[in-house]
């Protein structure tokens, strides 16, 4: 949809979470998402680009 930098998440109702995980694991997942966000805004892109977060 034209957003230049996109970090892929796991579900519409919880873009910064994953309720299937334990609270500790979900917190760690959220942290990796935001860390990937920091990496994304620090990366040069010329078109809409998806940044994947590794599961672990």
């Amino acid at each position: 949809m034209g957003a230049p930098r996109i970090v892929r998440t796991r579900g519409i109702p919880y873009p910064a979470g994953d309720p299937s995980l334990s609270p500790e694991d979900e917190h760690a997942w959220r942290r990796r998402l935001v860390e990937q966000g920091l990496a994304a805004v620090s990366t040069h892109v010329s078109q809409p680009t998806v940044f994947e977060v590794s599961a672990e």
Partner: protein
Amino acid sequence: MRVVHYINQFFAGVGGEDSAATGPASTPEAKGPGRKLANLLGPDHQIVATVWCGDDYAVGTAGAMDEILTLIQAAEPDLVIAGPAFTSGRYGLACARVVAAATAAGLNAVACMHPDNPGLDEAGAAPVVASGEVARSMGPSLDTLAGAARTLLLGAELTVDDGRIGRLPRRSVLDEANAATRAVDLVLARLAGDRDATEVPLPRFDQVTPAAPVDDPSAVTFAFVTEGGLVPDANPGGLESARATRWLRYPIEDMSRMETGEWRSVHGGFSTVFANADPNRILPLDVARELEGEGRIGALMAEYFVTTGNGTSVANARRFGVEWAADIRRSGARAAILTAT
């Protein structure tokens, strides 16, 4: 005939971003690009006033358009000209609203901006003609604008041949060729390589040029924005659950996380059970504060911005984006993370 020209603070020579909050003013002469425009309009027409306003004030202050319109009407114009605004978002919005307000008040008006300008849709029934992308194309843009102005001052209507862009009002006319003939003509044009010819222009979804990357996140203030409808539990601002017409801002200073029970999502497009059970799933303030504490994020903006992205019109979404960008830039933040549901 009498022409009033609307421009922003930059083209009026008043100042740049630092003067964007300045209110409207009028001067009884051509100013900035209006001088060349006056030459192009020729001796029969005169720019009797230039009305200018800071872009932030024009698009961010309630009643700004009334003030601007009052200044315009005081000069008793036969035509109001706004721009060219090129691809400048706030300037384009301002120009579009000026000509929309002038047209609603019964004045003849035309704006000039690039077809990708987010303001284009706000001109309503008022005509808009195409400018180039950046101010470097001022010359040809003014040629188009002056030609359109002369046409309007003759009492004629603007067509795509005059450089007109945006939504054209539909009217019934009798064409010499019937629909079958015109359809075949369009097919032949397409086969010949013309991919734009159409009698029914579809809405366009524009491309956004990505901003340059930040050099060092640990030296930058980050804004957090969401379209997940996350608001204080009582929804004091009355954010809509769908087809949002506004966005809201709430302070997150001195907060280390979004506490369960204090916030809820009013989004009507998904089950908000998970969001309400832990609002950090919508706005990841808990980990953002951790990263700030570790020095990996320079700082967090004192407020977050929120709207509901559920059947929201493209025109409103564009406007929110322009307003967010201006607000974030003014706050000193240099990067934004938007969580999208």
